[in-house]
Every structure is written in C-alpha cells, then in structure tokens.
C-alpha cells in the first residue's frame, strides 16, 4: 500500500512538473532553444502573484489571472529583446544569453524581496488543506487533484490550439521549417513571439503552483529549471504529450525514491533522467519531432 500511495502521490507531483515543463517544451519545439531562465521566470511569476495577493488580499488563483497579462507582455519582450537576437548567432548564444538573464532575474528578486522563504499556501484557502482518505494508507489531496487536472487541461488546450486553430498551424509550420513557412507568408517573428509569450504564461502558472503547494525564494529558479528540463527529456524532446508523461514519470520517481529514503527523492529523479539519456542517446542520432 505504501508503494501504491507513493506512486499516486508521484502522479500528483508529476502534474506540477508537467506544468513547469510545458513552456520549456513549447520553446524547444518551436525554436529549438532551451531557455535557461525558465525556472527563474516561473519564480518571477510566483512573486508577481505574491505582490498582488499582498496588496489586494485576493485569492492567489484570481491574482494569477490579474498577473497573466503582465507575464504575456514579459514573454513578448523577452523574445523581441534577447531571444530573437540570440537565435541568429549559433546554438550556444541562446544558452549563454538566457543563463545571464537567469542570474539577473535571481538577483533582482533577491534585492527586491530579500532571501526570505515565502509561500502562498495559507492564502489559497481550503484547497491546500482538504484531502480524502481513499483507503487505509492512501489519501489524495484536493490541491494535488486541482494541479493534475489543470495540467491535463493545459496540455489538452495546447493540443487543440496546435491542431485546430490557424495560429496553431502557423506555429507548427514554423517549427517544422521556418524558412519554408516564411515563403508561404507566415511571419516567423510573430510566431516566435507568441510561442515565448505562451511559454512564459504557462511558466507563471507553474510558479503559482510552486507557491501554493510549497515554498519559494529568489533562488528557487534553477531547481525548477532542472526538474522541468528532466521532464521534457524523459518525455522526449519536442513531443508535447511526452512532456506531460515525462513530468508524471519524474514525479513518481521522486516519491518512490523518497519512500526508500527521504533523502533519495531528488536523486532518484536525476538518476531516471540520466538513465533515459543513456538509453535514448546511446549512440543513436538525435531526432526531434515537433508537437502534433
């Protein structure tokens, strides 16, 4: 029963990782870049929500809706100022530029908010405290269900967006071949900016969940980036639904590891990630498939 409980809790935790990883997966799928500031952007989102909650006293969920336009504008700005330039000059430049950005965001947050550890768990109301006893030794929390459902909805909505809407087709076409897409009249600059804005908005949602389900501080970003990246890689880079499954697998690995010894939690997640790298990239060539 304890193992079953660990697996169930892992799936709920995995829903959180999938949301964190979603934006990273979109940006890689569309632009072939990994944003090393992704985790810090999620934490920035958490702080934006935190400020709104502090000054208005509204629920973090409502505050997130208020914060969303801010994050979308930030996403556009990120694309137009930094990423667009870096895309033109080789594969290392986006990594270097976003690594620099990551340090800047962390330390600006440190200056503005001090190193104090914060949480929005107390402001989120009953959802953080309710849970149901399903069987002896197996209980599910309301928050876990909410996050998992939101994760599935986010991925489902993205799927519909990419497969059913004109903007989604344009994004897939640009991801497949940006130059060919330009030839048929698609403005790749606009597509890239939309993809980044979407990624930043979903990262902020990940930040909201981080703030509600546990604690955060200005330096929480790198850990979130590592977990998000592990979810993307475990699920297969460039595969959207794979990222959801990757997040769940990472969550289960961590909770099952913690079952063996609480200190092994993060370690087992890392080991699963490294094992996937060995198996998947074991001599074979890398192939990237874009979200369908």
């Amino acid at each position: 029963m304890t193992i079953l409980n660990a697996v169930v809790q892992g799936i709920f935790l995995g829903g959180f990782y999938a949301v964190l990883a979603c934006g990273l997966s979109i940006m890689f799928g569309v632009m072939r870049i990994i944003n090393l500031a992704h985790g810090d952007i999620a934490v920035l989102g958490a702080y934006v929500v935190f400020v709104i909650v502090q000054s208005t006293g509204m629920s973090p969920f409502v505050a997130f809706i208020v914060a969303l336009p801010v994050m979308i504008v930030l996403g556009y700005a990120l694309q137009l100022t930094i990423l667009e330039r870096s895309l033109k000059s080789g594969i290392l430049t986006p990594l270097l530029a976003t690594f620099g950005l990551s340090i800047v965001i962390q330390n600006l947050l440190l200056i503005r908010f001090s190193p104090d550890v914060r949480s929005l768990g107390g402001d989120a109301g009953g959802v953080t405290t309710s849970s149901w006893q399903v069987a002896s030794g197996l209980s599910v929390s309301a928050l876990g269900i909410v996050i998992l459902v939101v994760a599935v909805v986010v991925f489902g909505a993205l799927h519909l967006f990419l497969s059913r809407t004109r903007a989604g087709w344009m994004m897939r076409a640009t991801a497949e071949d940006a130059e060919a897409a330009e030839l048929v009249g698609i403005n790749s600059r606009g597509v890239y900016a939309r993809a980044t804005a979407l990624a930043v908005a979903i990262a902020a949602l990940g930040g909201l969940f981080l703030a509600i389900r546990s604690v955060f501080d200005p330096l929480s970003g790198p850990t979130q980036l590592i977990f998000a990246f592990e979810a993307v890689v475990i699920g297969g880079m460039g595969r959207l639904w794979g990222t959801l499954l990757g997040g769940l697998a990472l969550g289960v690995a961590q909770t099952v590891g913690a079952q063996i010894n609480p200190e092994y939690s993060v370690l087992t997640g890392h080991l699963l990630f490294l094992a996937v790298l060995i198996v998947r990239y074991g001599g074979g060539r890398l192939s990237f498939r874009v979200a369908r």
Partner: protein
Amino acid sequence: MRVQRWTRTSKLFTGATLAIAVLLATAPLVFDPDVVQKLTNLLILVLLAAMWNALAGYGGLLSVGQQAFIGIGAYGTVFFAGLGVSPYPAMVLAMLVAGVISVPISFLALRLRAAQFAIGMWVIAEVISILVRLDQNLGAGTGISLIQLNQYAPNFRQAYTFWLALAFTFIFLSALFFLLRSPLGVSLQAIRDDEDAARSLGVRVAARKRLLFVLAGFGCGAAGVLIGANTLFIEPGSIFSVQWSAYMIFMVLVGGLGTFEGPIVGAILLFWIQTTFTQGGPWYLVGLGATAALFALALPRGIWGTIEERLGLRLLPVGYRVVGMKSEETTA
C-alpha cells in the same frame, strides 16, 4: 606568401609570460600573506577560465556543470587527508582523481549536444553534490574543514598553496597551449570554427572533444583543490554551486571565447571587480549576468577576440598566419 607562426610581438610576449611566471614565484617572499592569498584567487580564476574556454571555445561544449570537478577536487583533498596522506600530496591526488572521474562521465555527457549537454552536466554535478551530502564522513550538508592544513603556520601555508596554484596554472595553460599548437590543435580549431565541416573532412570530432573534456576535468579538479586549500572550509552548497559556472561564463565571454589570451583577460577583469566590490552582493551579480548576456549577444568574440580581429595581434602563438611577401604586417 609564407606561413608564419611566431611574430616579433608573440616572441617577445611569450618570453615575457615566462618571466612573469618566474617573477610570480617569488611573490610569497615579497608580499604579505593576504596579498598572496588574493594572488592565489587570481590564479584559480585564470585556471577556471582557461579550462571552460577549452571546452566551450574549442570543443563547442557549453557546460553548466564544471562545479562537479571543482567539488571532487576539494572533497578529494579532504578525503585523502582524512586517510592520513600529507595535505599537499593529497591535493595532487585529488586533482588526479577529478581528472580520472571525468573519463567515465565523458562517455555519458558527450552523447549530448548543446542544451542537453549543458543541463546534463548540471544534473551530474547535482548528483555528485547529493552523494556528498549523504556522506557523514565528508561532513554531509554542513561542510568540513581542512584541519590538516593547520599544521602549517599561516604564512607558510599561504605560500605553499600559492606555489601549488602557480604550478597547476602553469601546467594546465601550457598543456592547452601545446595541445593547440600540435597537429591535434589544428583539428580542435577546425571544430571550433565549424563542427560539421570538420567532421566531413575526417576530423575525429568525438575523440577530440573527449580530450578537451578530460583536460577540463583535471583542470577544474585542480582549481577545486586550490579553492579548498585557500578557504580551508568546504561546504557542498557553495563548492557545487552553479555560481562557478556563472563566473567561468562571464570571464570567457567578456575576455574572448575561443582565444587563448581572452580568458586570462577575463579572469583579471573578474578579479579586479571582486577586489573592488568586496562586499559582493546581488547588484554585483546582476552586473555580471547582464554583462555576460550582453557580450554573448553583441560582442561574441569578447574583448580580446575583438582586439585580435582589429589589430591582427597575436601575443601567444597558437595559430598560424599567412603573411604576404610585400608587407610583413598584413594578415591575409
């Protein structure tokens, strides 16, 4: 037309470099111990920058996880000293262990490219850091002192550590210098300029990258040993911190990625910044991060790369240049 390696400037400068190394060796006899400690820090930065540049500048391998080897070097010293090995031989052993461990790691890490490699190395560093935290004998999460170094009087200890730093820096920079000048070096610079083109011309890209990776493993291990010896206290949170990668990226990007002299310039600059803004703090890191990002976007060849390009200057001859018969000064 003829092909030239040494210019008058580079002969002069290589001679000057050797003279500086000899002069530096007398520093502990001349300066106060705290100055010697600062100079040790400078040498550590030079070593780190040169090793990160060997990876990224010549191998195209952007690692955010070199702190893995820094940590192995530092903790290796504690480990061997704990077994009863005399501290300074323990440091050399720990440096060797870091280098040897980089070989199996390379077989995993070098399968990855670009972002996968960058974050893959970061995760490897995290795994090693967690393993250290789980080991009570290494002080677990709270850290451990290098008490064995207390057997030396502070000014002697600082002098010995400085000489070890000078020796390590000299050995690893010379190794890189001669590697780049050897026939292997030509293929490394070809990989730097265009990996796919180099591969199509028959360069064994994977083997060359492994060579650089292992060199950087030894070099970063050496830097870690020196960091431990210079601070006397090691703690997993700081020795395995990704901040080391941030420093390395800053020094190499600002100095000049893929040039031999650039990282040294970057290291001296970071050293100057660190001694000027001694209180450190977040604003200083904001400045470092923003500067690194700006250089990556706007001046990718860094300070030294740009000077080299504009003036055709070569201080340490690692490449060749083609000189027209008419004018000695034009670089074709």
